[in-house]
């Protein structure tokens, strides 16, 4: 009942207003399109072995006789819808498998980030004090080293240390691990902030007075209330992880070029760009940008949609 200027007429902020217009005009259509594209990519990823016209693992997948065939609409070669690369591999098949690989690495890496981040965030926020100080300081320092730089350095060292052959066997595991360890502070910070906010609320006090243990309060009572922002970060981080994987593979520090990775394919295609075989490079680039864009848009949409501050009618 006490008047406070800021609550005089809860009018929306600029951004939520823009969002409101956005949803009012094309928002819903956009959201539907983004979701459809997301599901499409997921299905493609999961069913890649079934729908790909060729098996990327079979030895006759590479056939130099078919090298650098242009896409169907140029070459009219019905065998290869999107053309072939310099080794005669079917681009469509590599892109399908590559999408599957990107999504797998993305999701697993972000799962590691989320797991570490949520646990440390919960502990940091709930325990507080010196531990909180230390963890957050550590998170700051880690964030100040750029993720991509850290990943490049570690993968480069790993490759030099163990040689290219050992590295190629472990590439996927290493990528997931490095990307996974790199950005946990994002989750930790968000979860910590929500925990600090939730901790003030009465139900936590009530639970504590009832003699419920700390861990139980954290996981059963506080955690569910922090999941909304975590979901948003999770989605956007998948986009970032996919970018990181492709970028590292492009530099030759990620997936080996024999594996169906979009980044590695773009890298090998770049060399043929000058000789006119643009499709080896351009088509997987488009597929990759599409995948990242879908994840980013999905994250943006989730953030706007789940944001309790957003004005709704």
């Amino acid at each position, binding site marked *: 009942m006490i008047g406070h200027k800021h609550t005089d007429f809860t009018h929306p902020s*600029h951004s939520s207003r823009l969002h409101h217009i956005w949803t009012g005009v094309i928002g819903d259509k956009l959201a539907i399109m983004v979701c459809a594209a997301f599901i499409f990519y997921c299905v493609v990823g999961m069913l890649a072995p079934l729908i790909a016209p060729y098996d990327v693992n079979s030895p006759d997948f590479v056939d130099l006789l078919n090298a650098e065939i242009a896409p169907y609409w140029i070459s009219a070669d019905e065998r290869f819808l999107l053309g072939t690369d310099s080794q005669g591999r079917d681009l469509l098949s590599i892109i399908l498998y590559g999408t599957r690989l990107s999504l797998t690495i993305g999701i697993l890496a972000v799962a590691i980030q989320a797991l570490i981040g949520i646990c440390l965030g919960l502990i940091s926020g709930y325990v507080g004090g010196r531990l909180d100080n230390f963890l957050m300081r550590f998170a700051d320092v880690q964030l100040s080293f750029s993720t991509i730089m850290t990943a490049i350095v570690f993968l480069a060292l790993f490759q030099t240390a163990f040689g290219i052959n050992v590295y190629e066997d472990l590439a996927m595991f290493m990528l997931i691990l490095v990307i996974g360890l790199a950005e946990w502070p994002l989750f930790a910070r968000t979860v910590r902030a929500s925990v600090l906010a939730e901790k003030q609320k009465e139900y936590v006090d009530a639970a504590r007075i009832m003699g419920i243990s700390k861990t139980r309060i954290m996981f059963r009572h506080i955690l569910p209330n922090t999941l909304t922002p975590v979901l948003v970060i999770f989605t956007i981080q998948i986009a970032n992880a996919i970018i990181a994987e492709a970028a590292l593979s492009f530099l030759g520090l990620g997936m080996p070029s024999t594996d169906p990775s979009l980044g590695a394919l773009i890298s090998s295609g770049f060399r043929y760009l000058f000789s006119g075989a643009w499709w080896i490079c351009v088509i997987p680039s488009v597929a990759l940008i599409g995948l990242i864009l879908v994840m980013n848009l999905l994250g943006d949409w989730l953030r706007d949609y789940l944001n309790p501050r957003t004005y709704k009618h």
Partner: protein
Amino acid sequence: MLRFLLRRFIQAIVVMVVISIISFSIQSQIGDPTQQLLSPTVNQSERDALRETLGLNDPVMVQYWHFLQGVAKGDFGVSYFHKEPALALILDKLPATLELIVCTLVIMILVATPCGVVAAIHPRSLFSRAVMLISSLGISVPIFIIAILMVYVFSIQMQLMPSFGRGETVHVFGSWETGLLSKDGLAHLALPVFSLSIAIMPIFIRLIRAEMLEVLESDYIRFAWSKGLSSARIYFIHALKNTALPIITIGGIQTGTLIAYTIFTESIFQWPGMGFLFIEAVGRADTPLISAYLIVVGCIFVLTNTVVDLIYGLANPTVKFESHTL
């Protein structure tokens, strides 16, 4: 001020020690230098003799101490591939990379700031919407694809710009070679710098816009309006100065990303900078070169962060360098 510098200095030392340990372990633990330095026909006893003279049989701490002594004298070892001192190689390539970074930063500040500010002041205008749409898309395009696209469109299709190398360079200040003073050098600089700018700009435009929107809603801006100040003074003195603070912080954090991005740009445009040298060294397992690169990058990193902190402190009156409670 003294206390701030001291704290910064200690932090810098910690970072450098960590990097030096990493570099040391790369050099001493990874690969056997005797295999790199001697031909395979040399027999084992000569090999052992060399190990002894190189100090490879000493305890790790002693070896580390020798390594540090070498680093202090600027001796990072000799590149296996180039057969030249690693540090000299890296420093030789440093100007090329710094020119990329500085030009990118200048373009970014000149373009991103007005874009972000205008997008915040007139959020509904066509221009702001276009800017926001483009930067939303830009965030989803990885740096290497931007660079490839640049090459494809401007070099291969339109044949407007050269796509590799630095072009003609001019000597200034003794050993510093610059591409900024010749027409050819500038033409070569264009595509890599545009790629870097496009890659790094969307984050900043979105950030500046978001911060500016928040500041414009604040009471002190309303109070400034109610004093009857001109809009130019409100936007560029009252609002931008407050917006600058978080941007400076993020700018410091983005240093690492920018350096990482130069690796991509340099390897796509065959730009003879240290990033390109580094990625080649990784391919050749040239450990002295790798560790020299890490230490140079570490120095740049520590230096920029210190400078960023100083600027932040100067721009933000609530940060005090001199502490009254010493």
